[in-house]
């Protein structure tokens, strides 16, 4: 009985997925360029948040500094495109690769500690990255940022870049799904639930945590590189604590224990952001209140809430 239920759910999931991708694929036909740009930004934010959630929701490692690795990806691609003649594809891949390398170094230090000390370490490292970018004016142009980044002809139109982003985000999400539904993914969850017991069943905890950290950093780097070419510019505040918190809020908003949580969270966040900033300059105030509301009333996040309701409805209908 369990088998067939699962199969039915699988079919439902597959259909839902096709519908979602199709929706995003045909969207540009119905909306203006400004909106396409927004959806593009949302997709990239969703990717970054999903990357963060690999570490946060699945491995239970709370990082206060994902923006640092995101910025490493963005700046690597930006600097390569600006200063060298490397082909676009390579420059784009170099972003996540560099972010991955940075993650190995930063992660090696950070996973030696747990909980609040781990979080503070990630914060310190991302602030150091921010300082390096900010101060190294000669190389990174510091506070001015890097603008007018050269992007290939065929990607300079908004619609084209949208489809490019969509494809990359879909591939990345598929990869992350594969990771999360593998033995490795399940072991990470066990790690989150009970690191001690996980060690007692034969798992080298530090190694798995570092792997999660690096995978997370890699996907954050992809998001950074994508955003760099989307915006055709990069600024030091890509590594700022506000950006880190944005990603954390998006994850929490959608629900960190759901795979699609960060994606749902990203949609809601961007929608709220653009809506509110249209009316008032006090977006931080509204965001703060939204977070409070979330923490008090919607603890599983929006996607979590939906999943719960669906489960309850299903149980009800089966009597």
């Amino acid at each position: 009985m369990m088998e067939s239920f699962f199969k039915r759910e699988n079919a439902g999931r597959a259909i839902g997925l096709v519908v979602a991708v199709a929706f995003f694929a045909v969207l540009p036909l119905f909306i203006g360029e400004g909106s396409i740009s927004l959806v593009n930004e949302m997709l990239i934010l969703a990717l970054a948040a999903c990357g963060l959630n690999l570490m946060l929701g699945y491995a239970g490692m709370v990082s206060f500094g994902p923006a640092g690795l995101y910025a490493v990806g963005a700046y690597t691609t930006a600097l390569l495109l600006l200063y060298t003649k490397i082909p676009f594809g390579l420059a784009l891949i170099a972003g996540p690769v560099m972010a991955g390398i940075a993650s190995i170094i930063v992660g090696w230090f950070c996973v030696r500690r747990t909980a609040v000390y781990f979080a503070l370490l990630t914060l310190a490292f991302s602030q150091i990255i921010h300082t390096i970018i900010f101060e190294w004016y000669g190389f990174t142009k510091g506070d001015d940022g890097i603008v007018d980044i050269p992007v290939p002809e065929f990607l300079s139109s908004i619609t084209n870049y949208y489809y490019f982003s969509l494809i990359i985000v879909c591939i990345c999400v598929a990869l992350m799904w594969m990771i999360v539904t593998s033995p490795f993914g399940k072991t990470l969850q066990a790690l989150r639930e009970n690191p001690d017991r996980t060690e007692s069943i034969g798992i080298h905890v530090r190694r798995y945590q570092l792997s999660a950290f690096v995978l997370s950093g890699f996907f954050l780097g992809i998001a950074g590189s994508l955003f760099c070419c989307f915006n055709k510019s990069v600024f030091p505040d890509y590594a700022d604590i506000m950006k880190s918190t944005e990603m954390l809020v998006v994850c929490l908003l959608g629900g960190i224990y759901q795979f699609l949580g960060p994606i749902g969270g990203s949609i809601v966040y961007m929608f709220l952001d653009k809506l509110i900033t249209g009316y008032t300059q006090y977006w931080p105030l509204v965001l703060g209140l939204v977070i409070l509301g979330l923490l008090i009333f919607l603890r599983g996040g929006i996607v979590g809430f939906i999943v719960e309701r669906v489960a309850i409805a299903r149980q009800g209908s089966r009597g």
Partner: protein
Amino acid sequence: MTFQGLIIQLLSGLSVGMVIFLIAVALSLIFGTLRILNLAHGSLYMLGAYLCFWISSTLSQVSGAFWWSLILAPIGVALFGGFLEALLLRRIYSREMLEQFLLTFALILIIGDLCKLGWGVDYHVVDTPWPLNGPIILGGIVFPRYNVFLILCGPLIYVGLSALIRYTRLGRVIRAVTYNREMANALGVNVPLVYTAVFMLGCWLAGLGGALVAPMCAVMPGMDMVVLIDCFIIVVIGGLGSLSGAFLGSLIFGLVTAFGILVAPRLAIAFGFILMIIVLIIRPWGLMGKPE
């Protein structure tokens, strides 16, 4: 760099350090007893500064207006903090760290914008009060009197707090709750009340810090984040939960930053973080903290 210049730099660092000490010690105290890292402490400091500006400018006809605001502003922040604790913080004590982080971050956003709503986005100035305006001149060194006052405040507060914790009944109760909440509860201590009291004390300290710093620097949006990050560094170095650690950490931080600016001005900001990382790796419970 002349000898005088060096001394001035040293004193500069110390005065900065001592102000941040007030917020750092509050952060440490709250973490030690309530077990949460209150990110909004920088905002409460900023609120203290704004209240100080508001009260002293409202009372500008009264002599000694600044001193009145120095008394009233921290009380205002403490009351506000008590309200926050009862309404919001109480709900998240048993929750996971991420939720606590996000709640206190939400408070940063809210308090920050409330200050903007109340006092606008421009910066405000509080005049240095008599008799502390003007410089001290000693052996060829010219240094603002007010900064000397700040340097003296630090140890004064440290001694006062230590005495409170060690010798008063309240201090004993706080220590009991910090050491073992369940046991204290079983012995009849009203733990939620103690939590509120400790939080209000922490807010009072932050408000005092803000009020003290107001004459020295511009009161404006953004001052909350700058001081917050510095505080983290200090409490990590000194040890989360340790009073003397916060004091020691503030001294170290103040001096390292001051001399860092002399040695490598552009990377001085990073020195603090590097120190923080070193401590977290080698001795995560800080110089004076206790391993868990």
